[in-house]
């Protein structure tokens, strides 16, 4: 039977032995395959990866899987892409955890999520790896903490098209972008150390994506320091268009709060607030609202920013008789409007914030986390639930219990095949026309004999 396991219960089951789930540890040693362990694993299992070098890509299409590196005397398990493998870990399942791995030399991403909810990505080291280091996409409710990432040609940590994510206690350096929050709502970026990237923290909207908004983002208590690395992003990528030397970029995102950060030594500007015009040569999207609205800039420590600004910024600043870049640059249009606010503005060098209002909010003590208490509800399909899912997904499209649809009613099939599930299993592999006034059933021979038998037994047991 399909069970909807509340997220909290599932996490609990990882700690406590729950009789219905029977979580197991699966050991992987040097020379063995992590993917092999994933293939064997079921919901709740923990895959323990021992020190060694693992030259593979791992795909997790199951719910409730944990991959945990085992670090012994400073020896880590290393996933090695050798510059030829695509991604190190790609998950689609819900309730996925990956931790304690070193990942290096992949062409694509180190850790990528595609629609898995309730993810945890922590204690990983990602070095010199392709496009993104950590990139959950289309995920709801996730935690990214205590990771160290460097040498990424796009964003080290890229939260793209997600809801409810905390990113905290990470170190990102020598990347093009440190941490990106893009087309995402409800994100807390806290206590991270972003240094020596082209730009440190970026909160923005990319036009042309199916999810159009970024709002409710808090950047708090981060070190954003010396982000002056020359841009080495791939041609055509969004970040390849970001000028070097910027601590924080807020582009088109709404309701962003910046508080308690130490932002220093960024040579173009400490923070840039801008609309979508900041990025050129990208196909426009009428469904993406281009303006940054309702920015809240609270107390931050900013100094030594703007020492050597890029030409555009230098030209802007010259209009204010300055050759240096500012701590805060509100660039054009709505970025300069009074729906944005600031406190203690006199402490910073700035451009374009004259109209910003005084913030009513003075701190963010009320915001503890953006995670969803109890986790995002997610349909966890158990092994037992598979057959029911198959019946409902495939068979029930044509067979109703006691009504004629495309196929005969399940009741009549039950009468015809009483005690003979094998008869159904055989028939559906290669159906032939039996009834003059019903279409021939599409063959299901691609289902294994066991699956056909399972679903046949299920069909005989349906009671409504």
């Amino acid at each position, binding site marked *: 039977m399909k069970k909807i396991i509340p997220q909290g219960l599932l996490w609990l089951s990882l700690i406590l032995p729950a009789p219905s789930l029977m979580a197991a540890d699966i050991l992987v040693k040097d020379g063995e395959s992590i993917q092999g362990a994933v293939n064997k694993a079921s919901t709740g299992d923990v895959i323990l990866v021992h020190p060694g070098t693992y030259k593979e890509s791992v795909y997790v299409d199951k719910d409730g899987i944990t991959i945990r590196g085992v670090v012994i005397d400073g020896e880590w398990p290393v996933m090695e892409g050798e510059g030829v493998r695509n991604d190190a870990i790609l998950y689609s399942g819900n309730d996925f955890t990956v931790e304690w791995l070193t990942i290096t030399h992949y062409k694509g991403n180190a850790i990528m999520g595609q629609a898995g909810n309730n993810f945890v990505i922590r204690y990983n080291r990602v070095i010199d790896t392709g496009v993104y280091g950590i990139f959950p996409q289309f995920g709801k409710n996730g935690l990214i903490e205590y990771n160290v990432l460097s040498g990424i040609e796009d964003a080290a940590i890229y939260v793209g098209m997600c809801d409810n994510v905390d990113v905290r206690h990470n170190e990102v350096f020598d990347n093009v972008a440190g941490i990106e929050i893009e087309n995402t709502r409800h994100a807390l970026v806290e206590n991270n150390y972003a240094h020596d990237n082209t730009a440190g923290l970026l909160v923005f909207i990319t036009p042309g994506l199916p999810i159009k908004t970024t709002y409710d983002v808090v950047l708090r208590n981060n070190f954003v320091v010396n982000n002056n690395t020359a841009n080495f992003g791939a041609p055509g990528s969004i970040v390849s268009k970001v000028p070097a030397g910027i601590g924080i970029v807020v582009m088109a995102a709404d309701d962003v709060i910046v508080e308690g950060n130490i932002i220093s030594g960024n040579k173009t500007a400490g923070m840039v607030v801008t609309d979508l015009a900041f990025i050129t040569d990208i196909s426009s999207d009428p469904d993406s609202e281009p303006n940054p609205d309702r920015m809240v800039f609270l107390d931050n420590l900013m100094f030594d920013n703007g020492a050597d600004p890029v030409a555009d910024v230098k030209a802007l600043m010259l209009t204010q008789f300055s050759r240096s870049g500012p701590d805060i640059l509100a660039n054009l249009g709505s970025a300069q409007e009074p729906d944005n606010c600031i406190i203690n503005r006199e402490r910073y060098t700035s451009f374009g914030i004259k109209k910003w209002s005084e913030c009513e909010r003075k701190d963010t003590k009320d915001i503890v986390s953006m995670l969803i208490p109890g986790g995002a509800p997610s349909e966890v399909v158990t092994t037992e639930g598979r057959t029911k899912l198959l019946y409902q997904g495939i068979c029930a499209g044509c067979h109703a219990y*006691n*009504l*004629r649809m495309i196929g*005969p*009613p399940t*009741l*009549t099939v*039950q*009468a*015809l095949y*009483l*005690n003979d599930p094998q008869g159904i299993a055989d028939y559906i592999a290669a159906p032939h026309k*039996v*009834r*003059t*006034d*019903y279409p021939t059933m599409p063959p299901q021979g691609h289902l294994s004999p066991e699956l056909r038998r399972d679903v046949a037994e299920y069909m005989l047991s349906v009671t409504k």
Partner: protein
Amino acid sequence: MKRLVLLLSVFLVACSNDNTPDVSSDKAAAEAVQALQQSGSVDGKALYAACAACHGAQGEGNPGLHAPSLANQQDWYLERQLLGFRSGVRGSHPEDGYGAQMQAIAKTLADDAAVKAVVAYIADFKAKPAAKTLEGNIKRGADYYSNLCGSCHGPAAEGNEKLQSPALAGVDDWYLLKQFNHFRDGIRGADQTDRYGYQMGMMGKTLPNAEIANDVIAYIQSLAD
């Protein structure tokens, strides 16, 4: 008082008339058994002579003796039923009096060849739909027929040999109703070794009530013309 009488007579009809053969029927059945025991023929025509007393010379049936018409039933189905009577999977239930008669008669047929011979003879009768004796809501019957019956018995109740589902159109409506009730009540098709009978036994429990069963059969009757 009137209602009590009505109820009582319904009860009597249900008990006696429906499932318990009357004197004339018993007499005819006994004569058939006797005739078959004496003849020993394997000729279909000769064998059928014993059947004709109840089912009529042309297989047209005789409602008075509760003998259904045979002319509208398919040969493969008649054969299976005769074999079923012979083996005892049909006509053994204590409440199936007419079935018991047929079981006795079928068992006096010499062998399977005799069964085939008599069925072959019946197969040559000209099909002629049995007369309508029931009234019902044909539209409603059609809905239920289409949903639950048609997938085996066919869109025109023409039967489907691949599924061993007999034609129903043209068969006496009173007989269909009685047999349906037998299936529903476990008088027929209650034995799992009677595979096809048991299938119908399961389906006999899927119509919501007797009134709707009546409607379905009225609809089937309407398909005969």
